[in-house]
């Protein structure tokens, strides 16, 4: 993992401090989310294909999530990674595009908070904050509560309602699942990937 530039590390420390001031407890162990990008080498129809993302989350260590941007998603077991090796003549891995996010887990009452540093190809790109309200799986029933909680440590940086919920036909009232979480990470990763960050190309 790459070193984190001073400014990012300061922000991470500040978020940790704010959470601890609130009374949140640091949990044992850290968390990680990673994402590999694959592209089809050639399609029979000659049409350009969408990128295929294969992701892992330490919260679901036996699973592997495969996603097409805006398209179908698959939850599979870890052998899916082995299958991608078999498919290497059809889908090539863009190693330079590997994104990782690692950090600490906090618990504040019914909230689980994960603050992570996002690195792309060993260079730090940004900070992620994942907030989960554990007793409820229906986003529409807890969004206002979550927003209020996030304000307490993110201040004015509270995000808008994640689009993954607004684009669903049932909207906010369909239960969320691990794919919804991974879709949000993927959106964040792609946003950070497009950011120009001069001077951040620090390598180990």
């Amino acid at each position, binding site marked *: 993992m790459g070193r984190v530039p001073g400014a990012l590390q300061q922000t991470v420390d500040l978020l940790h401090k704010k959470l601890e001031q609130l009374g949140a407890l640091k949990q044992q162990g850290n968390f990680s989310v*990673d994402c590999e990008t694959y592209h089809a*080498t050639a399609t*029979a129809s000659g049409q350009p294909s969408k990128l295929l993302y294969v992701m892992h989350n330490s919260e679901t260590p036996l699973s592997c999530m495969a996603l097409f941007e805006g398209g179908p998603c698959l939850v*599979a077991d870890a052998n899916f990674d082995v299958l991608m090796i078999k498919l290497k003549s059809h889908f090539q891995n863009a190693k330079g*595009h590997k994104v990782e996010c690692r950090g600490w887990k906090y618990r504040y009452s019914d909230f689980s908070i994960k603050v992570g540093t996002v690195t792309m190809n060993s260079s730090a790109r940004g900070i992620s904050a994942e907030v989960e309200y554990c007793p409820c799986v229906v986003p529409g029933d807890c969004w206002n509560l979550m927003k209020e909680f996030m304000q307490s440590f993110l201040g004015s940086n509270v995000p808008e309602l994640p689009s993954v919920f607004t684009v669903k036909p049932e909207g906010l009232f369909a239960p969320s699942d691990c794919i919804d979480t991974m879709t949000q990470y993927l959106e964040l990763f792609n946003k950070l990937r497009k950011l120009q960050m001069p001077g951040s190309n620090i390598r180990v």
Partner: protein
Amino acid sequence: MEAPPVTVMPVTGGTINMMEYLLQGSVLDQALDSLLHRLRGLCDNMEPETFTDHELVYLLKGQQGNPFILRARRSLSHPTAPWHLRYLGQPEVGDKSRHALVRNCVDVATSHSLPEFLNEMGFRMDHEFVANGHIFRKGAMKVVVTKLSRILVPGNTENIERLSLSYLVELSVLAPAGQDTVSEDMRSFAEQLKPLVHLEKIDPSKQRH
């Protein structure tokens, strides 16, 4: 987005290099009961297990070479169970002394979005069938006795017609590469099923007509 550079694959999880050791044979419908009876006697003591599966065979055609084949299977008797995605490599050639067919094998359990996902990857369904039958186990060995049926109306697993008047019998073991003693065990087990069924090393690539 520009095409990312091409590099070597990383692996995060999963079991690399699992091999399937396989012997195959068949029995006529009339002989099914005596075979099942024999298997019940020889195999591990367990509740009789039956299955009814729907298998879809998908092809991914590249610009050159053979198409890449994947098999997607779902249980019709347990519709909420995960789908099973399977890759089977080409049979290993050369080793004549080995008693079983050996091929690379990757098994993946997946969510129910598999057909849609494979389509997005560029795979197209080539053919489908219904397989139903009985499963037996003896240690690491698995014996599957299967009746294969063709699907008359695409996608409709109710409307089927049996493919033949016999049952396919398969004896298989999954083991890491190089464990060739496995094939010895399989051979001695297959001996015990004679003359009810003759299990042989059959190369599927030589069966195409």
